[in-house]
């Protein structure tokens, strides 16, 4: 008999403490031993996780009104400019915005981390002044307790799959994929592979708008498809499938987050970014979904890309799978090079475990997507029109 489950059935089991939940790593030996059908019968939910640098992140903050009030037109938090072109006291603080006094040493991501950890943040705002908002300047301090809302809203997170970065240049280059040594001296990659959310549901059967997720240590939601969403499936000559380009826009209450699962980071020579922890539970509605979540590192392939090439479409130097990458050494054009993950597998595992425990305790229920992601999407370049 083929199993079919609904979200409601799974949630009922979770509420009564009877749901069976494992992580995307733990499911692999189970499926190997029992097969897809039996595993589908036994398991209700599989949890995934990722903890990596996600540059397209930021926070919406509402400071509350001062007396006399000010319609803030330019705002700085610890000298990092936040975009204030929304009403009077709302801003959007971008994670990659550098500080005006410390440059690359501190940025929006650090303000976010400091806010979460309860530190005092210096606020400075200026305005032209209006009849209804006469004030032209304010300097004060805020904390997460003193402000109205602080909502993390990240337009593009959780990349489904990503390139392996190498450089054929004769000098060391500094990229968002870390430092790349000359003449293919190292190789950096950046997903949690078999634990990665969008690689466990590559067709977006259960992940869509409204899905409840683990975000930065608290419960958040998928708000929309991520920007540049372009779920391609490439099949190479040998029939290997490469998933690419699925992304997520996520939202959650910053005040409830923990710096154990969201951190500021600096890529030298590139800039500031936010390391975001995301975990997504995948309901085992049927055996097709079980098949997807049982994916292994050795079955997930990605492309080795030459990042020293200064144009948008960079040359590919071959393909590797995540098992090879995680073993620490790969061969690129006949050369053995060490690999660096950039995305923390230890933390991804911790997040998948934590999410599993929260569901087991009945604290986290599954939410069916309110709407699915678009089936088709175009990835448009920016044309220069004169």
């Amino acid at each position, binding site marked *: 008999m083929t199993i079919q489950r609904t979200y409601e059935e799974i949630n009922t089991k979770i509420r009564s403490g009877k749901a069976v939940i494992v992580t995307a790593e733990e499911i692999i030996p189970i499926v190997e031993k029992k097969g897809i059908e039996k595993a589908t019968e036994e398991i209700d939910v599989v949890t995934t996780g990722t*903890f*990596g*640098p996600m540059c397209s992140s930021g926070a919406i903050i509402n400071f509350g009104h001062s007396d006399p009030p000010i319609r803030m037109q330019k705002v700085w938090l610890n000298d990092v400019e936040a975009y204030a072109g929304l009403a009077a006291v709302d801003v959007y603080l971008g994670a990659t915005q550098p500080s005006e006094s410390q440059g690359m040493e501190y940025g929006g991501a650090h303000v976010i981390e400091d806010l979460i950890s309860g530190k005092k943040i210096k606020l400075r705002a200026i305005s032209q002044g209006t009849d209804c908002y006469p004030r032209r300047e304010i300097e004060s301090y805020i904390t997460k307790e003193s402000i109205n809302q602080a909502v993390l809203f990240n337009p593009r997170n959780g990349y489904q799959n990503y390139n392996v970065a190498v450089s054929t240049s004769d000098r060391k280059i500094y990229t968002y994929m*870390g*430092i790349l*040594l000359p003449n293919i001296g*190292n*190789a*950096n990659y950046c997903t949690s592979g078999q634990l990665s959310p969008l690689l466990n549901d590559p067709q977006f059967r259960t992940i869509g708008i409204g899905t409840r997720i683990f975000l930065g240590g608290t419960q958040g939601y998928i708000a929309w498809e991520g920007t540049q969403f372009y779920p391609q499936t490439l099949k190479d000559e040998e029939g290997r499938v490469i998933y690419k380009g699925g992304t997520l826009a996520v939202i959650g209450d910053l005040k409830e987050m923990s710096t154990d699962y969201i*951190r500021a*980071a*600096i*890529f*030298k020579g590139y800039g500031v*970014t936010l*390391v975001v922890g995301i975990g997504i539970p995948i309901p085992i509605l049927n055996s097709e979904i079980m098949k997807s979540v049982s994916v292994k590192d050795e079955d997930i392939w990605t492309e080795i890309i030459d990042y020293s090439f200064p144009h948008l479409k960079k040359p590919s130097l071959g393909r590797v799978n995540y098992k090879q990458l995680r073993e*620490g050494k790969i061969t690129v054009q006949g050369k053995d*090079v*060490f*690999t*660096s*993950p*950039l*995305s*923390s*597998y*230890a*933390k991804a*595992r911790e997040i998948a475990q934590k999410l599993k425990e929260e569901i087991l305790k009945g604290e986290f229920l599954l939410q069916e997507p309110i709407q699915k992601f678009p089936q088709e999407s175009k990835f448009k370049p920016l044309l220069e029109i004169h």
Partner: protein
Amino acid sequence: MLSKKVIFTFSPQNVERPVTYQLIKDYNLWVNILQAKFEPSLGGKLVLELKGEDKQIKEGLNFVRQIGVGIELLEQEVLWDEKKCIDCGACISICPTGVLSLDKETFKLKFDYEKCIVCGNCVEACPLQAIKVIF
């Protein structure tokens, strides 16, 4: 017993000298090669860890200096702040001597201090500023 890390810089004139062999044989030192880069026509660089009696290390280094090999003592140390570290591994692929790796079971960072030549590569590669070089 003392332990010292040193960098020897060879010129084309002395690059052929069997320095490590002599340090072991004549000065009774324990020699561990941490890194070696040689090009016979240009010279080379050797990073070593030496262990032995204070007097013998001094005499051994004196002998090396006499034959015209440049000597630098590595007095610095790297400090890894485990609390800041998120085990992202960004520091691994950039390390010339394979000091850093992820544990095969836990995927947490391992720091094999013995092999470190304090080159500073990992310091600039760590996005969390969890590694520092101190003098």
